[in-house]
């Protein structure tokens, strides 16, 4: 029994796909799991697997054609099987083959519902330059309207499409009523300088810095206990979990100077001071005020300083020297209920610790199931400075300190 292979929905947002390449030709034997074709979706190029075995009886979509999800792509069945009725059911003209074989090749079968659209591979008049620019920018020439003679697409048309990618499409293919007009689909705003700085610095980090990530789960029972017992001892200022973590990180850095380091112009700098940046979220972006000499400060001092820095950060009152020059950064999203995440290193630091929420979890204690507080810490490292084992030792030290928090007090 012949089956129809359809353009699959390969991502949530996929509406159509381009049949890039047939890996198998008509007449080929197909086994379940064989790669039939390569398909380009809005996200990636994917391989189209066969879910049915048999013989590839007919290919319905030519290479390069862009078709909506669900469009019949091919028919798999038994050799010699009569598929005329099936084809007719799909709306594919079938008689032409016998009349004039070349006519079939010259006029690829159009899938139903596509008659009104221009299809990739169909002749589009465009200057060679326009073709090249469109190819480089990923613009579909078939969607453009040319301003040259007889509608020839030229450089300026492609450039216009690149700068306003949706507009030309609207011009040739009116959007359905339900589709919002481009102006309503998004609002374009000038990013703040801070947003731009974050964008620049983060891409400056992620591209050249080879990140790797390590995660541990820390038993936070004693930290919770500790915080409860000292909650009101510092008077006007509350000691937060983050302050405790900062202290633990600072003490661990003292023992693992390679984590308190930078890779700068081919040299490694081991910093003598332990200055920890703390990521503070603002509406426009984020900023990392720095606690200097964090390892030498008491929890109360750290808490007070942190409170002050955070307040002034929210009001944009920080001086540059207060948010630059950290040697390591802690980023805590625990208060948002995030259990675990990986942070991007703030260059040129060698690492950043991403702190997840402290949550009650079923834990095994003395071979018994019990309830315990747990937090997951993820360390992002610059592999140019540290390797996995070094980083693991550091992270284990942070864990050891947090699981024995009294050591933070001495």
């Amino acid at each position, binding site marked *: 029994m012949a089956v129809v292979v359809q353009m699959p929905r390969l991502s949530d947002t996929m509406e159509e796909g381009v049949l890039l390449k047939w890996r198998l030709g008509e007449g080929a034997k197909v086994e379940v799991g064989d790669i039939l074709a390569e398909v380009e979706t809005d996200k990636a190029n994917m391989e189209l697997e066969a879910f049915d075995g048999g013989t590839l009886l007919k290919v319905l979509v030519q290479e390069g054609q862009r078709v909506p999800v669900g469009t019949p792509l091919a028919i798999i069945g038994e050799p010699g099987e009569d598929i005329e009725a099936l084809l007719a059911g799909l709306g594919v003209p079938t008689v032409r083959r016998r009349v004039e074989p070349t006519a079939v090749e010259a006029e690829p079968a159009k899938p139903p519902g596509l008659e009104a659209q221009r299809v990739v591979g169909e002749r589009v008049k465009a*200057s*060679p*330059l*326009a*073709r*090249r620019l469109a190819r480089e920018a990923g613009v579909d020439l078939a969607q453009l309207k040319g*301003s*040259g*003679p007889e509608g*020839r697409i*030229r*450089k300026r048309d492609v450039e216009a499409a690149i700068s306003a990618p949706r507009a030309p499409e609207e011009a040739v293919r009116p959007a359905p009523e339900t589709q919002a007009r481009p102006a309503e689909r998004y609002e374009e705003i000038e990013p703040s300088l801070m947003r731009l700085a974050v964008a620049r610095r983060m891409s400056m980090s992620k591209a050249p810095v080879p990140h790797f990530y390590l995660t541990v789960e820390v038993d936070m029972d004693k930290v919770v206990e500790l915080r409860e017992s000292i909650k009101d001892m510092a008077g006007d200022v509350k000691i937060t979990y983050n302050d405790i973590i900062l202290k633990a990180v600072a003490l661990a850095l003292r023992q693992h100077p390679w984590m308190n380091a930078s890779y700068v112009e081919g040299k490694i700098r081991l910093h003598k001071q332990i200055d920890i940046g703390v990521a503070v979220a603002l509406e426009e972006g984020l900023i990392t005020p720095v606690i200097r000499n964090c390892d030498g400060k008491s929890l109360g001092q750290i808490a007070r300083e942190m409170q002050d820095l955070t307040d002034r950060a929210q009001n944009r009152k920080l001086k540059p020297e207060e948010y630059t020059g950290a040697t390591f950064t802690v980023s805590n999203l625990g208060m948002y209920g995030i259990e675990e995440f990986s942070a991007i290193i703030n260059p040129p630091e060698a690492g950043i610790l991403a702190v997840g929420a402290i949550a009650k979890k079923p834990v095994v204690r003395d071979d018994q199931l019990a309830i315990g507080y747990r937090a997951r810490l993820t360390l992002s490292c610059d592999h140019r400075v540290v390797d996995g084992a070094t980083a693991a030792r550091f992270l284990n030290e942070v864990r050891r300190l947090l699981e024995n928090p009294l050591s933070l007090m001495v």
Partner: protein
Amino acid sequence: MAQISYREALNQAMTEEMERDERVFLMGEEVGFYQGAYKVSQGMLQRFGEKRVIDTPIAELGFVGVGVGAALAGLRPIVEVMTWNFAILAADQIVNHAAKIRYMFGGQAKVPIVIRGPGGAAHQLAATHSQSLEAWWAHVPGLKVVMPSTPYDAKGLLKSAIRDDNPVIFIEAELLYGMKGEVPEEEYLIPLGVADVKREGEDVTVIAHSKMVHVALRAAAELAEEGISVEVIDPRTIRPLDTETLFRSVRKTNRVVIVEEGWPFAGVGAEFAYRIQRECFDDLDAPVERVTGADVPMPYNKNLERAAIPDVERVKKAVKRVLYL
């Protein structure tokens, strides 16, 4: 810098080279006693004497052949043809001998000859005296074809041509002989095969040689007033052709107009256009346009003659065509 005419520049080039190298000599119709049909060799007979400035009979095949023989024998002749229209009579010597001897003798003999004289239309000289035949000569492997458009280029290129060990076809423009331009006092050479950007621009590349450079420059100046920025490239030598300079310009502007006075069919512009589309296909935003002489024998009638030669208006129209304006 001194302002001298195109013909004086050519005269200086020959004079300087004859003083520098005693193997160099000039021969041709009327080059001596009459001081040159176009007065290019003025004063040279008095300066160098009858052995080095030689009047010939009206016999192109013969005296070009003598030049080829002299070159083979170790001299460095400059042969003036009264116009390139008459050099057709010497085509056998030029095409069958000058161009091929070095090749046919496996490099054992060379033919360092310069054949020079005016080409192109002037004013009402009619069909047999108004031809731009550069495509004929450029078609032949073994010949170099040089076509200067300014006094500066004329002098620098002619000196290089005289020093070249291969036969060089040096086509001057009859209507440019009186044109004045700056030429430095000190010695300089312009290598063969190097194009010149006569005007920088952004929107369209106009390639023109010889007299047409000036038509292109006038068109560019007028178009600039309309806000169109035209780059004018003068190849200066048709062969060897400096394609790199052409390609660089095309990659910048994405549009090309080629202007030549010669006939369209198999003209040198056709070769330029082929090379550009071959190497710059993905940089072209419009088909390459050509503005050429009319595909007819040159009319004697003044108005018809004018209509048969590319002019500023036609170049401007072509520029607008490639801009889709």
